[in-house]
Each structure stands twice: as structure tokens, then as C-alpha cells.
């Protein structure tokens, strides 16, 4: 399959994530949309990594050059997991105090 299929798919997922973050009002759904953005990036990195691996091989490079994109994906997964643990804790903490996970609540801080 040509590379641009993957790029279009990843870009679409990313845009869905961005639109979700900007329009949804539920903190957990906003958070899920952020995760969607991260996963779109993962997909794109893996696709590019495969592309570059092929190019390097064609140019006669040895071994594992060009696959560091796949390694990056593991780091993103680990960091995303760390973020989830902190983020859900913060959401739970807020829910305990106000019994709601609505983002509109944040506007109270403005004044």
C-alpha cells in the first residue's frame, strides 16, 4: 500500500482528536481525544519508519537504520500511560470535590 494512505488515515484520526478536545465538555472524553491524538502519531511514526527502512535498504545501508521511529512509539506508549495515571487521578480528585467532570466548571477560575 502506498504511504499516503497511512498519512491520510493518521491525519484524519489526529484531526478527530483535536476537534474532540476543542468541542467536547466532558473531561474524560476530552482526555480520550488526547489519547486518540497520540495514537494517530504512533501510526504515522510506524508508517514513516517502514518507509525509511525501505529507502535505507535500497541505498545499501546495513542493519537497523531507519527504524528508530518504531522505538519512539514505545516511548510514546510509556509516557501516555504515565499521563493517564496522573490525569485520571486529577479527574477523580475533582469529581470528589464537585461531583461533576464537566469542563465548563473550569471557567469559574477566570475571576
Amino acid at each position: 500500500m502506498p504511504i499516503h494512505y497511512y498519512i491520510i488515515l493518521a491525519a484524519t484520526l489526529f484531526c478527530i482528536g483535536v476537534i474532540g478536545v476543542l468541542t467536547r465538555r466532558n473531561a474524560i472524553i476530552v482526555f480520550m481525544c488526547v489519547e486518540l491524538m497520540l495514537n494517530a502519531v504512533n501510526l504515522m511514526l510506524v508508517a514513516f519508519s517502514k518507509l525509511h527502512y525501505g529507502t535505507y535498504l535500497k541505498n545499501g545501508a546495513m542493519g537497523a537504520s531507519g527504524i528508530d521511529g518504531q522505538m519512539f512509539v514505545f516511548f510514546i506508549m510509556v509516557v501516555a500511560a504515565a499521563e493517564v495515571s496522573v490525569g485520571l487521578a486529577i479527574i477523580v480528585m475533582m469529581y470528589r470535590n464537585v461531583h461533576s467532570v464537566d469542563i465548563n466548571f473550569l471557567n469559574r477560575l477566570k475571576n
Partner: protein
Amino acid sequence: MNTIIISAIFGVLMMFSSISVKRVSAYKYIAAFGLILLLIMNIAETYGFQLFHVNTRDMLRFDRFGLFFNSIAIAATLIYILLSGRDVEAVGKNTCDLFVLIFFVMCGIGIMSSFNSLLMLFLGIEIISIPLYILTGSDKKNLKSNEAALKYFLMGSFSTGIMLMGIALLFGATGGFALDRPATMFGPLPVNVMEVIGLAFILVAMAFKVSAAPFHFWTPDVYDGAPSVFTSFMATIVKAAIFIGFIKLFEAKAPDLGQGWHIVIALMIVATLFIGNITAIFQQSVKRMLAYSSIAQAGFMMFALFSQNDTSKEGIILYSLAYSLSTIGIFAILIKMKDVTFEGFNGLARTQPVLAATNAVFLLSLVGIPLTAGFWAKYYMLASVVKMESALWLVIVAVIFAAVSVYYYFRVIQAMYFKEGEAALATEVKPGFRFGLILLAAAIIVIGVMPNLLLNWLYF
């Protein structure tokens, strides 16, 4: 390498020390000990002594500039712990963990000042950010702290997502994560559209993190809602560290963007200075005023991104130090106040002459009055742009906004010295705290008289 490894190991060890050490007041001294150890190790590394020999495959590159910035960040954190450590104890039940999180942030700062690969940039930013989300929300029963934490977290992870997209596009365009431009068989790789879009994404995300306009809107709310002790840390040391990363990154990548880069950054600088300074005028609370002032100061720090020469490198070092020390001092006093509005400072000079005098020195340094460190910080920043000879209008704009900033900083001095009132302290201050403030003010004046004392360290 010493800073990164030792701060992480010390953080973990300190976390376990809370099992055996039950006295809450001891943690401050354990943390201070750890920071002194870190400082010694980092200075030793500056002169070639490494505890660990790690092959980083050129993902991290330790140069004089980064190591010296580490020293400054660690020293500023040490001062911060010594001045405000008592107030950390007042925030929550798990005092030890809060100190530990500061050590993890130091680990991230070590990465930010030495990364040479986009992977390390990403990890450094995240290692700094995740502990900060927790510190922001550490006052669990306080609704304002909760809101600030949630807002910071959502904004922070959103901007991380954008930055990762930029990194992915950049990887697609160049085939690697290294900052150096990859070479092909036919000379350097040409710049293409995908790379420019990727860099634009990264620029947006970094502007988010350093709260540069138009991506500054989370800053006042978060800085206002977080416990004041941690606002002090976030607004100073962490912001300076992210700036160092920002500068390192675009020092390598800005040439690819050509002329458009200077226009974009100049517009961002003007917008940041405008929004920070003009909004700060209308604030009633000193804490919120300092949040906007930190946006305005970020505008000045961005001059280093605009000019990118030797003077700007010296300037960003001086600026980080001058701005961090002054703001840490002001916050240390602010935490002790009962009322953090401007009226709360009325008549402080009569009841607490030492606090008022040192606070005045810190505020003068933030304005950039000669004989304080802040003057040289602003001077170097402007001089670096003057040297370019192509953007004098930017210098004039910056000077005008520096004059505007006099208004809101001097309002505090006016309240302390010329207004009648009974400024009340929330807690009693100890002689040690006063002594620390005097030393800090003296340090600011010494650097203000002889900035070379500091800058020589960059070279020798």
C-alpha cells in the same frame, strides 16, 4: 549525565526515606542535602569528572552552556527550598513526595539542557510536565487547585500531542530524530513542506509550554490556582529550563525555515509583551499580577530565539538567573502575607522593614533598574538584537513595554512604603528567613554590579 542520574536516584531514595523518617521538618534538609550533592556533581562534570560513563549514542550532548545552566537551575532550586521549604510542608499531608517530585523535575531539566535528539526533547518535556501536574493539584481539598491542575493537565497533554505530531512529520521528512541535518550522498537534504509544517507544530507546542502569546491563556489561571509555593517553582526555574530547550532546538532548526522564522518570532514577541504587560496593569491580586508578569518576561526571553548569537546565549543565562532569583524572592514573601492583593501590602515597610526592603530590590530587578541583575539581563537581550542591525523597531517596542511594566511593579513598592495600613503576615517569620532574603537581595545586587562574575563561568 551526573545531574540526570543522581537526581533520579536521589528522588527514589528520598521517596523510601519517608518510611523511616517520620519528622516532617526533616525533609526540607534532606532535599537541601540532595541539591547540594547535585550541584557539586554538576560542577564536577563541568570540569570533566563523570560518575557514570553512558553511551548515549549522541542523543544527549553535554556542552558547557547546558551544564552551566544546570548549575544555575540547581542553585536556584536550592535557594527556593531553603526559603520556601517550610511552606511546602503546609500544603498537603505527603510532604516527602512533594520534595521528591521536585527532584524528578530536576532530572527533566538535566535532559532539556543537553538533548540532541527529538526523542530526548519529548522525554525531557514530559518528565518536567507530569510532576508539575501533580504539584499543581497538590492542595487536594482546595477547589482552585483542583481546577488549575485539571486545566494544566488537559492543556499540557494537548500541546504534547501537537508536538508529537510535529516530531512525526519531521521524522517523515528527514528520516531521523537527530538535531543535526542529515546528509545525503548529494550534499545536505533539501527542505520540504512536510518539514516546515512539522516545525510549525513543534513551535506551537513549545510556545504553549513557555506561555508565549497567543498560547498563553492557561498561564494566569494555572499560576493563580496552584499553591503559591509551587507557582514560584513553575514560573521560574521550570520556565527557564523549557526556554533553554526551545533555544537549543531552534538553534539547529531555524535555518531551515529561512526568513519566515524571524517574522513569526517577532510577531510572537510583540504579542507576548503586549498581552503580558497590558493585562498585568489591571490585576488586583499580586499573585495574578506576577502570573502576567511571567508572560511579559517570557517575551523578553524570546529575544534569545530571535537573535541567536553569542550575546543572546550569555543573555539567556543571565535572564534565567536574574528572573528566577527575583521571582523566587517575591513569592517567598508573598506566601507569608495574609492578603495577596495590592492592599495587603499597605504599610509593610513599617511593620516588617527587612521584608519590604528586600521585596523592593526583587521588584526593581524585575523592572530592570541598573545595579540589579535584571538590568544586565534585559541589556544583554536587547544588545543581542541591536547587533543584528535589522530589527531595531523590535528593541524600541521592548523598551516601551519595559517602561509600562514599571507601573505595576512599582504599585507594590508604593503600597509598601507610601500607603497607610496594617500589612498582616499569615505566619511568623523566623530570623533565618530574613537572613536568607538579605543574602538573596545581596546576590542580585552583586550580579547587577559585576555580571562578568557569572558569565566568565561560561568560558573558564
